[in-house]
């Protein structure tokens, strides 16, 4: 059902391995400025490659594009299979884009072990890219797990907080706990395929290939089991309420650069869209699953927003707002209609600009005040007008003001949610109101009003590098807000294919059609 478009040149492999090869080059360099310049160059080349892929991508198509396939471990059916479709290609661009900004941001904020830091960042970029472009579940899992190693070191070695050791360990163990369950789910998919293949094709093959697994129907009770196993993996990573407790710790204790990637690139929810929904359509649309997951999503929206309202620390506030936004994404995904899925996908991308952007703002504040506690802010707009302006722009995008990207995504999600069940939408709308409340209230206390006592009088406004970051984020925010159709066109084909797959009546129908094809 899914065609593949291949090009001769293995551009995805280049995208995948350029950062890690670059990290090795960095290892050999001595001079710190040289290291920084090279890291920037590597991420810029990476961004150029990603933009090239985006430009050459055929929109309105459900096909996997730029695919590459090499058999890796045939005995277990593992292959090196890369490809992007409308669901994943935007994430490739987003990751490359954020990596450039993180390198720019880290230019003068990271002072010790610069080389190791940048190497970890580049390794993180490779693994993140790997998650998005892998079409083989084991390959995907490899990158999913490998991501933990650079993240662990980033939080531990360059984190600012006193609790960073605890946060790093918690992050690794939580994610690992989720992913071992996911691995069982993946293995079950493989075994199911094996049984199906030996019945229908009379060959004893194993496969972990997404496209091949999609062809093998799965009995309903198996689907439910696999769904929950994979749910554990994605929910811990995303994180979906109530598996979120590591996130505030990791975001608060880790360095800003890490927080940007962790909060900006929504791997967990991407996993739902990439694997859970298409592979397990019947489980995904079964009454229980939808109800449970959506209720978790709604809880996350309200809980996250409510918690964000009372936070004194800006990074903690962002962590909870992140949880709240993920709730929206989950509700949109499990509305299981075109608008919901499209809105979720767009929101995931949007959060890459807005949440990540706010983390950059938090970083700017941190480098001026050495803390992100509210007590040390107040009336800062007078001293740092540029910072305050960008803070407002990105923040408004995050709460979904019309004209910014956040509005388009949230609107589509709410539309989808109302279409699915009216009360999904009704509860989710409350989240929008809370969202506006916590952000605007915090902004008012931090930036407006009388100048706070702790605010240094010598504070300087944004510097060139910081302006570059803020402007490029704002451009993306306004672009998607005012003219989202290029982005929507890219994702439409794949989202439509996903909806079609979900709307197949039963597995039996699918089964009979494949048998007929076989004859």
């Amino acid at each position, binding site marked *: 059902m899914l065609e593949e478009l291949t090009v001769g040149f293995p551009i995805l492999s280049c995208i995948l391995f350029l950062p890690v090869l670059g990290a090795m080059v960095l290892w050999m360099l001595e001079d710190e400025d040289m290291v920084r310049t090279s890291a920037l160059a590597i991420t810029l080349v990476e961004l150029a490659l990603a933009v090239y892929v985006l430009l050459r991508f055929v929109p309105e198509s459900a096909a996997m594009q730029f695919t590459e396939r090499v058999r890796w471990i045939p005995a277990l059916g593992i292959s090196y299979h890369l490809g992007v479709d409308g669901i994943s290609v935007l994430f490739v661009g987003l990751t490359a884009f954020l990596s450039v900004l993180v390198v720019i941001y880290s230019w003068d904020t990271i002072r010790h072990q610069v080389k190791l830091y940048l190497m970890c960042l580049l390794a993180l970029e490779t693994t993140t890219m790997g998650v998005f472009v892998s079409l083989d579940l084991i390959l995907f899992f490899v990158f999913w797990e490998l991501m933990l190693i650079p993240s662990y070191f980033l939080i531990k070695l360059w984190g600012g907080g006193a609790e960073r050791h605890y946060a790093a360990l918690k992050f690794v163990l939580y994610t690992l706990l989720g992913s071992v369950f996911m691995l069982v789910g993946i*293995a079950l998919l493989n075994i199911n395929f094996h049984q199906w293949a030996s019945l229908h094709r009379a060959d004893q093959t*194993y496969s972990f290939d997404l496209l091949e697994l999609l062809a093998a129907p799965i009995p309903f009770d198996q689907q439910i089991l696999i769904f929950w196993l994979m749910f554990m993996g994605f929910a811990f990573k995303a994180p979906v309420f109530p598996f979120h407790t590591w996130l505030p710790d990791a975001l608060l204790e880790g360095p800003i650069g890490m927080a940007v990637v962790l909060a900006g690139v929504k791997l967990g929810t991407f996993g739902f869209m990439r694997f859970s929904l298409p592979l397990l359509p019947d489980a995904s649309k079964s009454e229980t699953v939808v109800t449970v997951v959506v209720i978790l999503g709604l809880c996350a929206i309200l809980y996250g927003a409510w918690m964000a309202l009372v936070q004194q620390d800006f990074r903690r506030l962002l962590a909870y707002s992140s949880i709240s936004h993920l709730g929206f994404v989950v509700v949109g995904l499990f509305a299981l209609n075109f608008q919901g899925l499209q809105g979720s996908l767009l929101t995931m991308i949007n959060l890459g600009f807005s949440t990540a952007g706010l983390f950059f703002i938090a970083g700017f504040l941190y480098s001026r005040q050495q803390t992100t506690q509210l007590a040390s802010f107040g009336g800062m707009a007078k001293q740092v007008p540029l910072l305050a302006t960008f803070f407002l722009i990105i923040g408004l995008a995050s709460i979904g003001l019309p004209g910014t990207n956040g509005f388009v995504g949230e609107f589509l999600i709410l539309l989808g949610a109302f279409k699915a069940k009216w009360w999904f939408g009704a509860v989710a709308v409350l989240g929008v109101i809370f969202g506006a409340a916590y952000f605007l209230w915090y902004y008012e206390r931090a930036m407006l009003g009388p100048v706070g006592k702790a605010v240094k009088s010598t504070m300087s406004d944004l510097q060139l590098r910081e302006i570059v970051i803020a402007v490029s984020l704002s451009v993306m925010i306004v672009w998607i807000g005012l003219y989202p159709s290029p982005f929507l066109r890219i994702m439409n084909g794949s989202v439509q294919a996903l909806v079609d797959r979900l709307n197949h009546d039963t597995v039996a129908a699918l089964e009979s059609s494949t048998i007929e094809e076989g004859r």
Partner: protein
Amino acid sequence: MTFNLAISFADLLLLLPEIFLTCWLCVVVIVDFACPRIPQERLAFLSVAGLLATLGCLAWFDLSHVSGALFGNMFVLDRMALFFKIFIVGATALVILTSVQYVDRFAFFRGEYYVLVVMSALGMMFMASANDLLSLFVSLEFSTLGFYVLVGYLREDLGSNEAGLKFFILGVFAAGLLAYGISLVYGETGKIVFSDMAPTATSGTIIGFLLIFAALGFKIGAVPFHSWIPDTYHGAPTPVTTFLSIAPKGAAFAILLRIFFVALATFKPVWVFLLVAVSILSMTYANIVAIAQRNMKRLLAYSGIAQIGNLLIGLAAGTKMGNDAILFYLLAYLFANIGAFAIVIAVGQAIGSEEIDDYSGLNRRSPFLAFAMLLFLLSLAGVPPLAGFIGKLYIFVAAMKEGLYTLITVGLINIVISMYYYLIVVKKMYINEPIDPSPVQISGTMKAVVYVGLAGTLVIGIYPQPVIDWVVGATVMFANFAGPSAVVTPPVPPFGG
């Protein structure tokens, strides 16, 4: 039973590796005594040369598919035996390389250390080929005999003496159990060759096999037969610990595979249950206790017990695929464990300590050692794309095909637990400040062993296909194994109906 003891020259060819190694052993002893002033490194390299020649011979056998049986099926040479012999000889060669500097600590040292190591290896090579109860007993005791001496080799050191004594008493006790088990089984069935046995479930055979299993469980150190492991590993000279943690496990698994799949094929539902229990106990107990360890050798001892638990998952699957996975996992374990122990030895030589706290800031003192240790520990934990991950995946897929979900769940939770204590070491190496920032120097031979470990861990992890082909070929004797399945997996009905 008729014994045909007339041996032709062609038959003896099957014994060529063992005969060659025996002769070489004599050469090493003679050289040692004839030239008292010979530097001990030369003796080490002489032994390694003999082992490498044996390895070459074994590889040649494997490539040319030499196989056969000798002495009325007491001794078989099939592809599985060859796999295990290559495993054992390779491990032994690496262990000798790690000992080159370490032996300076031995008082009154002479070359007999190397002789004892190679002799144990010889015993284990016979274990890999043992095909009846007698050769099982003889070869198992033969290989353990060398270890009794080796474990207590640091004669000035109380810990080493204690380790030697514990190992000896418990080892002899296990040997007693084994002998008793063998006599019961023989009494009931009247057969000693595994393939002729076809035992029925009488109380004699059941108790007999349980005793044999207990003795082998002692050998591999599975819970609840593990109590000797931590103290023995801790007290023994570190190269001996390395040896003990790798080679005998492989040899014992060769025996376990033959007993379970050949002699006890009809009892599969029973032993699957037994293995599941032992596997769960081993993983859970060892991983939890490992968290509290402060000594690197003890940590690796417990992690080794946990790894045995993982291997038993593959055995419990009771299929050819499970056995492939075991062989594969053993190789992954070999490289990661020998690498980790080599680093323990190297660091121990440089700073005179094996406490985990003294690994603080290893990254500043020797980035290479710290990075290698990181990879070895991650491979033991099963992080992709290292060898340990593929091994675990292979084992889990094999077990899952048989529907052993409880076992898998426990195994997976244990991965998370094990990650915790491996990360403690990683944290010490990378995050903590070194107490003494002077660089750690390591010798060329140690470096070579670490490189071999790294190469194995990475290559098997990234490109495992040739190794998988090899292990699949090695277990070809189980291809038609069709014991009564423990869990009957019905063919999945066409969906929807």
